[in-house]
């Protein structure tokens, strides 16, 4: 007797092939979001507010209600949607330039109001679709098309740590930083997304799951070398773990 042990989540469109670059983790994250919402029985109430750039490519793959926010405005658009339909399960899907640069004000103030939605923050330290410009999270010394000699802190400042920035606020309920570089980390990311969604369904307020990922194309590395860079350099700057969990059992 055969037993089905795995099936593609209904949270992404059937018969689609991911068009993300080799080694990119966006497709994994999309799959995890779909799986978690399906587990919770909430695919018909799931609303996606997606950012622009590579995050906006998700519109080709997701099967649930969704809209595109202007660059940086994900948390403002999600505020409007969630406040008008509290029964929806709302998440924003944003990259580092979107969330931490142009959308810094919207992100911090939504978190500070304790808006009851979930932010999925995909941090790969670079602007992807526009061709590899410096992001607010770009590491010191890291080359980008707008820092051809590497990010120089005297001129460009330092990487912003969004989980830690939001951890200065009183309202946010749950902040965790994860990655998708190993099966173990993928499972941890799935758990983190599930926890954030559950907190939202319980009305606990603002949650953010930061997923530290690679961008082999714009880093100029092979997918395998990009994973090494991720573990050696990115995790050193952005350590994985729970930054805040107000619902943790003590």
């Amino acid at each position, binding site marked *: 007797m055969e037993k089905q042990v795995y099936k593609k989540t209904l949270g992404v469109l059937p018969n689609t092939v991911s068009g993300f670059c080799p080694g990119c983790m966006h497709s994994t994250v999309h799959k995890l979001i779909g799986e978690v919402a399906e587990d919770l029985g909430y695919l018909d109430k799931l609303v996606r507010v997606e950012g622009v750039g590579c995050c906006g490519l998700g519109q080709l793959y997701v099967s*649930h*209600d969704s809209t*595109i926010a202007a660059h940086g405005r994900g948390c*403002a*658009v999600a*505020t409007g*949607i969630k406040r*008008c*339909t509290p029964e929806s399960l709302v998440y924003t899907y944003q990259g580092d330039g979107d969330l931490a640069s142009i959308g810094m004000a919207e992100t911090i103030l939504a978190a500070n*109001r304790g808006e009851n939605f979930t932010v999925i923050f995909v941090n790969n330290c670079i602007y992807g679709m526009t061709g590899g410009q410096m992001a607010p999270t770009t590491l010191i010394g890291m080359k980008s098309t707008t820092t051809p000699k590497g990010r120089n802190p005297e001129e460009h400042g330092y990487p912003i740590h969004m989980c830690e920035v939001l951890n200065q606020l009183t309202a946010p309920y749950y902040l965790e930083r994860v990655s998708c570089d190993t099966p173990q980390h993928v499972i941890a990311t799935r758990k983190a997304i599930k926890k954030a969604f559950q907190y939202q369904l319980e009305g606990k307020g603002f949650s953010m799951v930061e997923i530290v990922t690679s961008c082999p194309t714009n880093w100029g590395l092979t997918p395998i070398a990009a994973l090494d860079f991720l573990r050696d350099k990115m995790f050193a700057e952005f350590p994985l773990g729970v930054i805040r969990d107000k619902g943790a059992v003590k």
Partner: protein
Amino acid sequence: MSERVFMKGCEAIAEAATRAGCRFFAGYPITPQNEIPEYFARRMPEVGGVFVQGESEVASVNMLYGAASTGTRAMSSSSSCGISLYSEGVSYMNAARIPAVYVNVQRGGPGIGAIQPAQQDYLQATKASGNGGFRMLVLAPATVQECVDMTYRAFDLAAKYQNPVLVLTDGVMGTMMEPVELPPMKSDEELAELKAAYHYRAVVGHPLGEAVFCRPGGIGGGWEEINKETVKMYETWDSEVEYEEFMMDDAEIVLAAYGISARISRYVVKALRKEGIKAGMIRPIKVSPFPYEAFDKLDFDRVKGILNVEMSIPAQMKWDIEYAVHGRCPIAESLRSGGELLTNDQVLAAARALAKEVL
């Protein structure tokens, strides 16, 4: 039964919106429209609605985008330099065909300008409220009663065309008190019906296979086809042209004005008539679409001159008048700007001078 009360323009706008079914308001403080968000902050909880003080105009208009995309009747308001920051969200709402209402209580400009009243956002409001060359219906009230009626109507127009609608008023109207008749409160049942009618486009509550992808452009293409469809909508707007003709039957001098300037012009027309000058007024009630026909159809054997009255230097509505008149009679100006108000005397003097020159 309608209800007669004495209200300030900004508060009357907020109450009219509430009665039209507005259940979400986001806005950021800016003078001279602060009474609108303040009124909503008190009023929304009473009717089960939502008030959010946005962290900026940019955030507020994007909250509006989100709220209205659920099929909830939603509104925002700001003033001039704040409205410039609305460009992004308003353009997105046109692109995604999201019905929403916003109000510009105009103040002096450009830049910070002045907190006092002006009409310096005409071209922005009517021609380019954001990137992409889209169009909107723009209502221009000239009394507090019209602020009420037009705000109330704006929600139906937004729903009808699934496009943002702008109520373009100014700091005089916003801060002035007048007696008004308030329209009836839409019932929860009516609002539920309106929401249900929009559900097929709303970004919430669909089972798999029926999901709504609310797209203000983006990846996937086909946007030119959508632009062509939108043009077809604009082409139906001939029926939306709205203007008032005041004492125009035998007019030889025509004052052209909207909003607060039209109130002053109305007085001036009457004063000129007493002096034996046959004056009249054309007042656009909607400034977009502009009532070109009102000027195009004039008998230029009789009409000898037009006076464009606007609280804007340089003149802005004059472009539209010139386009319609096409050199068939001289167009003079009576203008103020930067928060300085037009007076009856100034406009009267300008009209007399024009009459002396052309009659």
